[in-house]
């Protein structure tokens, strides 16, 4: 049986809650004198990174190591991958080395899906971000962070995010974080609103289970959590918005805007932050901003994912990739 985490859309509500509950138990391990569990002893997890992302890689590395797995970091930089070795040959190499799981970050959307479904490898594939497609573990850690903050670490166990209003702001078009979050948060019962300049909202967004707004100020008072996406300055050159200053003025989160949010509402950011662009330093450093917490929660969440995918003879999380090959 295949066992992969490619898209947040593959997770049912119960799967997602199980992952969050498991992450909650994993988080408690971090408070112990010995932060290590023997659970994945003898298993090999490969971090296959075709794209630089030290943050995500060390998060997965810490998660795998806390579960006693052997970790191999395979970076495309400086390896034969950058000299034209194909994804397939890399996959076959990892397979020959006996990888039980491959955590893959790739600049091409769909590369993890290909890896999982091509028959090149037997191990579990975990998508650690593919192109502008998805980043499901980021969405899980975001949901985990929200549940902890909005419901409570203990009170949240077994619960989803029903009725919570989540606003995602920024470059939705190029954001794998946004795509995964829309899927997952909706599955968990939250109401999602995307806020962005129209140029940064994908054509076809009308099929997504969320609202779209171009006006941040209108949405803020009705938000339980506001997730600010990183906006790359290069987008300006492709005419997605006129200037950084105008972007920050219309879509950046500063203290005045934060004051419009309800008392309990939190500010989230997947990092790395562009201070002064989508978020001011004042907001980034405020107690309402969960950016640092999200990093810590990332390890617990990824431990939960690795445990549930690798901890047994078959995964506890049902993932089904039997997507239609036929179009009728």
């Amino acid at each position: 049986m295949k066992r992969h985490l490619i898209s947040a859309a593959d997770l049912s509500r119960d799967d997602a809650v199980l992952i969050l509950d498991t992450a909650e138990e994993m988080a408690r391990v971090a408070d112990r004198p010995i932060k290590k569990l023997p659970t994945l002893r003898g298993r090999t997890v490969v971090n296959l990174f075709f794209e630089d992302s030290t943050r995500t890689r060390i998060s997965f590395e810490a998660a795998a190591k806390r579960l006693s797995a052997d970790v191999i970091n395979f970076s495309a930089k400086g390896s034969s991958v950058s000299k034209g070795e194909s994804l397939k040959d890399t996959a076959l190499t990892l397979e020959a080395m006996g990888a039980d799981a491959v955590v893959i970050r790739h600049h091409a959307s769909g590369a993890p899906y290909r890896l999982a479904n091509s028959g090149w490898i037997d191990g579990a594939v975990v998508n650690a971000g593919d192109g502008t497609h998805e980043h499901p573990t980021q969405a899980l850690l975001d949901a985990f962070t929200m549940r902890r903050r909005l419901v409570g670490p203990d009170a949240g166990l077994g619960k989803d995010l029903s009725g919570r209003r989540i606003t995602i702001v920024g470059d939705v078009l190029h954001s794998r974080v946004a795509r995964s979050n829309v899927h997952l948060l909706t599955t968990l019962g939250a109401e999602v609103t995307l806020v962005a300049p129209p140029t940064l909202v994908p054509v076809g967004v009308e099929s997504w289970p969320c609202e779209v707004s171009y006006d941040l100020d209108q949405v803020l008072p009705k938000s339980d959590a506001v997730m600010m996406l990183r906006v790359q300055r290069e987008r300006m050159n492709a005419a997605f918005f006129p200037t950084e200053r105008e972007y920050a003025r219309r879509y950046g989160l500063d203290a005045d805007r934060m004051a419009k949010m309800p008392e309990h509402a939190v500010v989230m950011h997947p990092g790395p932050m562009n201070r002064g662009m989508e978020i001011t330093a004042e907001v980034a450093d405020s107690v309402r901003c969960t950016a640092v917490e999200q990093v810590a929660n990332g390890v617990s969440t990824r431990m939960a994912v690795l445990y549930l995918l690798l901890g047994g003879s078959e995964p506890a999380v049902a993932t089904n990739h039997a997507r239609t090959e036929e179009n009728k």
Partner: protein
Amino acid sequence: MSKILIRGAKVLGGEPQDVLVDGETIAEVGTGLGAEGAQVIEADGKILLPGLVDLHTHLREPGREDSETVLTGTRAAASGGYTAVFAMANTFPVADTAGVVEQVWRLGKEHGYCDVQPIGAVTVGLEGKQLSELGAMHDSAAGVTVFSDDGKCVDDAVIMRRALEYVKAFGGVVAQHAQEPRLTEGAQMNEGVVSAELGLGGWPAVAEESVIARDVLLAEHVGSRVHICHLSTAGSVEIVRWAKSRGIDVTAEVTPHHLLLTDELVRSYNPVYKVNPPLRTERDVLALREALADGTIDIVATDHAPHPHEDKDCEWAAAAMGMVGLETALSVVQHTMVETGLLDWAGVAERMSFKPARIGSLAGHGRPIAPGEPANLTLVDSAYRGVVDPAGFASRSRNTPYEGRELPGRVTHTFLRGRATVVDGKLA
């Protein structure tokens, strides 16, 4: 030369008739024809069509012989019922000189499976900057009449205008690959609901439609004719319909895959579905079928685009665009147009033989099945049902989107000027 009697064939899908071929030409068409001295082929109610003509084939030779050669490509063409193919110019070197087009033309002649009519590049190196020696290619032994930068769009309006004007001198036609380059930078698939979900760069319909709109207006302005390659959107259909209603001399083609497949298939991230122009939506597919039926779209052209396995056995973004199509085209057309009641077999003959030959000014092909005409014929077992198995392809490449799919119809015999190139479904 020998005689062949094809007995009991439904000529263009009509009543069963006998067709007697003598040498390179059709000698007689009728019932109860005598078989003296002739090899008899019992057609048994199969459909007899004029040899198919493909206005849009990539034979890859010279330069990419790892994906296809003139030999393997023409064998694939014969297998699919074709007796003539137009070979696109995007080879290495580009077919932008008389020397290259003559080489391709000669290779087709030598191999003898299917006539090969080279298409000349509109601009040097397909770079869209300087006109190729269009006249020299026309005057060469290859007698080029169709010019295209296919694979790339002639996006400079001035170059396009000049090309349209220039080829009038010798009755040529420019076949435009309509793709606005800036709107399709990084484009990976049709822009819409599916691309939004998959996070693949969107290829908007407007990138095709805006170029077609411009080019039909240019053709009207300079009084030239223009041919639109692989139309893929409902909007493009509307523009061509409007242009024709104004009397603009425009013709258009659609590929078999755009008549059947949609962008939903891309959800598999399987690069076998990666093609230029991209697979569109069901709404587009239905509009294209309707347009092909009502004549807005004139012809079916395969855009047969072979690629070696390694160019498809990879992640989507790294994969090459294109699908092979010569060996499945007629089956897909039967499936999408004939069996849906949109076209009869005479209509298929018009769109896959008569009209493409006329657009390409190709003598000796796309002729009626009548005494005195060249014996370019295709016999089709339309009752056949089979699952597509690329292992059996004559093409050097296997990048078909139909693997494992059941499709109707099978070419049992192909005759090129009276000589069988396919017998009982096998290459002769």
